C-alpha cells in the first residue's frame, strides 16, 4: 500500500471546491481562522457559497467579495469590534440569505451531521422568534411519557470544512494547542472532506509524551488535505503563537465605511500570493510576534 501523503498547496485546496458548495469554517470570530485558505478563495472565481461557522473576517471578506449566497452563523463578530462591518452591510442590503442561529444550536446541527442523524432534539429556540425567522425549522414530540415538545435541529451537512491548527503531518494527524479548541472537531465530522492549514507541517508526528497526543483534536481519517501556511491565521489570532492584528483589523473595518473600500483593501493586500500578502502586512516575523490578547 502506498504511503499516505495529504500535503497540498492552498491553491490545490481551492481546485477541490465548486460554486454553490456548503463550506464550514473553524475557529471563532477573530480567533484561529484558516485565513490563508480564505485568501486563496478570495483570489479564485468561486461563487454562490454557503458558509457555516462562528464567523469573523472570514465571512466578512467573502461577503465583501460577493462570493456568498447564504450564511449559517451563530454570530459574525470581530470580538473587540462587536459586529463584522461587511457582514452588517451585506445583511442590511439583503444581498445574502441568513440562517441566524443560537450559538449552541449551530454546534448541535453540526453534531447531528457528524452522527449522520437527520436532526437532534433541543429546547433551544422554542419560546423565541427563531422558528419565525427560520421558517423551515420543525418541532418533534418526545415519544416517552413526558410528551415534551422539542425543536428538531436539522443536521448541517458540509461539503467541505476548512480548519487551522498548530502542527500537522503528511498523514493528516493534527495538534491544536489553543486554550479553546472551539468547535473544529464538529466541523471536521460534519464535512465530506476536511482541509487543514497548519503553522508547521512535518513528515510524521510521533509524540513520546502521551499528554501531547491529547492535542490531536480529531483523527486523521477525517482529514483530506494538509497545507503548511505559517502565519496563516493572520489577521486572526493563533494562540499560543500570535495574537490578532488589531491594527490590521481596524484598517480592514475602515474599508467597510468607504465606497469601493473593499476593492482598495483587496488591491492593497490580495494582489499577489500569500508570501506577497505577508510582506504587505509587515512580514512573517512581525505576524509571529503579535502579542496575545489578554481578556
Amino acid at each position, binding site marked *: 500500500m502506498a504511503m499516505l501523503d495529504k500535503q497540498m498547496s492552498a491553491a490545490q485546496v481551492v481546485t477541490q471546491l465548486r460554486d454553490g458548495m456548503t463550506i464550514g469554517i473553524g475557529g471563532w470570530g477573530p480567533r484561529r481562522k484558516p485565513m490563508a485558505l480564505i485568501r486563496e478563495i478570495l483570489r479564485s472565481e468561486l461563487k454562490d457559497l454557503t458558509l457555516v461557522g462562528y464567523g469573523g473576517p472570514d465571512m466578512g471578506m467573502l461577503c465583501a467579495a460577493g462570493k456568498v449566497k447564504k450564511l449559517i452563523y451563530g454570530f459574525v463578530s470581530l470580538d473587540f469590534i462587536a459586529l463584522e462591518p461587511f457582514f452588517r452591510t451585506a445583511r442590511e442590503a439583503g444581498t445574502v440569505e441568513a440562517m441566524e442561529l443560537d450559538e449552541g*444550536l449551530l454546534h448541535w446541527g453540526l453534531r447531528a451531521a457528524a452522527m449522520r442523524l437527520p436532526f437532534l432534539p*433541543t429546547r433551544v429556540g*422554542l419560546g423565541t422568534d*427563531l422558528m419565525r425567522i427560520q421558517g423551515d425549522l420543525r418541532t418533534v414530540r418526545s415519544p416517552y411519557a413526558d410528551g415534551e415538545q422539542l425543536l428538531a435541529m436539522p443536521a448541517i451537512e458540509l461539503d467541505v470544512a476548512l480548519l487551522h491548527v498548530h502542527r500537522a503531518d503528511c498523514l493528516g494527524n493534527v495538534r491544536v494547542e489553543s*486554550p479553546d479548541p472551539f468547535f473544529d472537531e464538529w466541523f471536521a465530522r460534519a464535512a465530506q472532506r476536511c482541509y487543514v492549514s497548519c503553522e508547521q507541517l512535518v513528515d510524521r508526528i510521533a509524540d513520546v509524551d502521551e499528554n501531547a497526543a491529547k492535542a490531536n483534536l480529531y483523527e486523521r481519517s477525517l482529514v483530506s488535505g494538509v497545507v503548511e501556511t505559517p502565519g496563516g491565521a493572520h489577521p486572526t489570532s493563533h494562540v499560543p503563537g500570535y495574537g490578532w492584528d488589531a491594527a490590521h483589523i481596524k484598517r480592514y473595518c475602515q474599508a467597510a465605511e468607504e465606497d469601493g473600500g473593499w476593492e482598495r483593501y483587496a488591491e492593497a493586500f490580495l494582489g499577489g500570493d500569500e508570501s506577497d500578502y505577508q510582506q504587505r502586512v509587515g512580514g512573517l516575523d512581525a505576524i509571529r510576534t503579535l502579542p496575545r490578547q489578554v481578556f
Partner: protein
Amino acid sequence: MSNSTFSLAELLICACAEVWRDEGEVLATGIGIIPRLAQGLAKRTHSPGLMITDGEAYLTDTPVTLGARSHEGRTYEGYMPYSRVFDLLWHGRRHALVGPVQVDRWGQANISCIGDFAQPKRQMLGLRGFPGNSINHVNSMFVPNHSPRVFVEGQVDVVCSVGYRDDNWPEGVRRDLMGIHRIVSNLCVMDFGGPDHAIRVVQLHPGMAFDEVQAATGFPLLRAGDCTETPSPSAEQLAVIRDLDPGNLRARQLRDNPPGVRVAA
C-alpha cells in the same frame, strides 16, 4: 443618605452584583465592563461559591484584573472552553447578566436586529446565545440607558430570549427551567414579581422618582410595596471594585460618568 462619594457606575456594579446573591455554585457570566466587574465583586464579597472565567477558556478562583497587560500571576482552578459552556448552560447551572438592546413587558429581549429580519434596518449582534441561555437557566439584564427605545411599548422586534408571554409558548414546551431574576438599569432595579410576572420597580437609585422611571419606560410599571432606595456602595465594596479595575475603565461606561446620587430635576 450618603453624600455622593461614588459614581453611578459603581452603584450599578454593586446593584448588579446582588443578582448573584444566594446562587451558590453556578457559572456567573457578566457581559460588558460593569456586569463583569459585578461578577467579580459578587464572588469576592457575598458569593464566593460562584464560578467565573478569565474571559477566555479557564475558570479562575480569583477574578482577573480588568485591563491587565499580561497573564502573569493568574492561577486557574478549572477549564471552561465554549463547548463546555454549552454543556453547562443546557444543564442549567448558570446565571448570566446580559445586555439587551430592546426589552418588552414580558421580559423578552432583542439583540438580533431592528426592523424586518429578512432585510433589517439595522443588523445587530444576532441571536448569539440568548435563545439557549434564556430557556435553560436564570438570567438577569443590565440596561445602562433606560428609555422607551429600550423598554419598548409592544413586543421586541426579534424575540431572542424567552419571556413570560403565554402566546409565544407552544403547548408541551417546558417553561419551568427558565426565569428572569432582575433588570438593573441606570435608573432603578426591577423584578418580575407582579401579577402574571408583571415588571415591578423594587429599588430606585438615589435621587430617582418612580414617575421619572415610568416616563422613561414604554409600558406600565408597578411599584413594589416594599420599594426602597438602592443601597449605596460600602467602603469595602468600593475597595474591591478599585482593585478589580485599577485603570478605572468603569468611568468610561456611562456618558459623563455621573455621580451615584443624582439631584432631582
